[in-house]
């Protein structure tokens, strides 16, 4: 079942990306290089900005929640988990439009919407990691006068660093592969997210080979997440 609907199309798309008129060829990758390099860089940059934004919000929030548990705020932080990607894209678009038209379809708007959606996941992963830090370390630092900021920066973050790294990779890859959020935010002029390119290359130009090559580039960029999953499974 999974083979027929996932593995087979995955294989077909990889083969197609290396084929031109039935013969093995790198023509599709030349097209990607010629037309889409800017979009590849743009996509990586937006995903990186979105990840940074997510952590900039989630680290202080989760640090505070780890030190002073407060149910209502924890509940609010998890809400984005339950809001579908498409809805997030539309919600951020209509939230930004009346006050800053043009922002929604810009790189900053897309990064903001991606960060909003991934805040839920980040909160879940970070709180788990922070709660795994032993209370005695925090106690010791408190005794020498450390406040919330110092405790988060000097104790919680360093001790949860491996978990933070894994979360960052997962969130970055998810942002890289996001399609519905940039689609709903509207297409501004200028560079586009990679998945939007795949969609239009396939749907409007009917150019499956180049769309597939763009897909392979995205697979490679998202390889970090795949490795994380594999390591978690074999550990």
């Amino acid at each position, binding site marked *: 079942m999974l083979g027929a609907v*996932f593995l087979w*199309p995955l294989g077909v798309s990889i083969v*197609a990306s290396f084929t031109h008129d039935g013969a093995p060829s790198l023509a599709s990758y030349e097209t990607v290089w010629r037309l889409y390099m800017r979009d590849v860089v743009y996509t990586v940059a937006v995903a990186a900005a979105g990840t940074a934004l997510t952590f900039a919000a989630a680290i202080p929030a989760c640090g505070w929640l780890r030190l002073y548990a407060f149910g209502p705020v924890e509940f609010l932080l998890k809400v984005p988990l339950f809001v579908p*990607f498409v809805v997030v894209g539309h919600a951020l678009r*209509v*939230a930004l*439009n009346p006050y800053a038209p043009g922002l929604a379809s810009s790189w900053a708007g897309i990064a903001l919407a991606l960060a909003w959606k991934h805040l839920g996941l980040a909160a879940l992963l970070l709180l788990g990691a922070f709660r795994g830090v032993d209370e005695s370390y925090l106690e010791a630092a408190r005794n020498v006068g450390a406040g919330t900021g110092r405790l988060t920066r000097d104790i919680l973050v360093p001790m949860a660093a491996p978990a933070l790294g894994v979360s960052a990779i997962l969130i970055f890859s998810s942002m890289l592969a996001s399609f519905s959020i940039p689609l709903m935010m509207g297409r501004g002029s200028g560079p586009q997210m990679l998945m939007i390119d*795949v969609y239009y290359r396939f749907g409007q130009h009917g150019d499956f080979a180049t769309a597939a090559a763009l897909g392979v580039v995205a697979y490679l960029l998202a390889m970090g997440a795949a490795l994380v999953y594999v390591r978690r499974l074999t550990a």
Partner: protein
Amino acid sequence: MSAARRLARAGAFAVACFVIVGPLASLAIWSLAERWTYPSPWPQRFGLRYWQRVVSGDFLEPLRLGVVIAVIVTVLALAMAIPLGYALARLTFRGRTVILLLFLLPQAFPQLPVFASATREFYRFGLAGTVAGVVLVHLVGGLVFAVWTMTAVFRSMAVELEEAAWNLGASTTRAFVGVSLPLAGPGIVASAVLVFLYSLDEFTGTLLVGSPFVTTLPVYMYTASLGYELQIASVTAIVLMVPGAALLLLLERFLKTEYLVFFGQV
């Protein structure tokens, strides 16, 4: 509690409300805005016109179709995932890791290029633009959720209870149906809810495989927003959020963290 603590709590709550509830509230405001043009900070005219138009119009058919697809996907996914999850949790056999890995792939890789490729393959079999095609595409994600949650559910159950049943002479099947399955009940419900909501909210695969004949609510919403009918799209967005919100409220205690992580992917 000290005054400073109370103030910090109130401040944190206010910030979280603004950041999290703000964009969702703007959906509600837009759904009621009959006229709202830049640079007015507030709609010029409020009204229920768009709600009326949506509820009386062509919105009910995508809703009905989406629910039908989600029910089919849920039943099929669980029918496959319950035995498979049990086997993955209880038995050690060759290829077990490979199977688990296979069920992570759709999670780890960008889905859109694969769905584009699947659409092309589906054309050859007359599945593109059909409900069957959309069900198949939803089953990919649905199975991933279902298999992982069911494996986790069976793994968390004490094997001693099944052993007791075997010792009393029950066959493997009898022990599974009489002991394991009822014990897994709450987990199965959670898994079913997860798959149902995933299918109801799924957009990318539906847009590619279903187009142009199968329109579910997310696709309907996208079409509305494409035509700058922001109010119609906002009403639809609110309706799409309701099941997830209800789930969050009802199952907050009940859903374990590992299920919630899957939710982030919808």
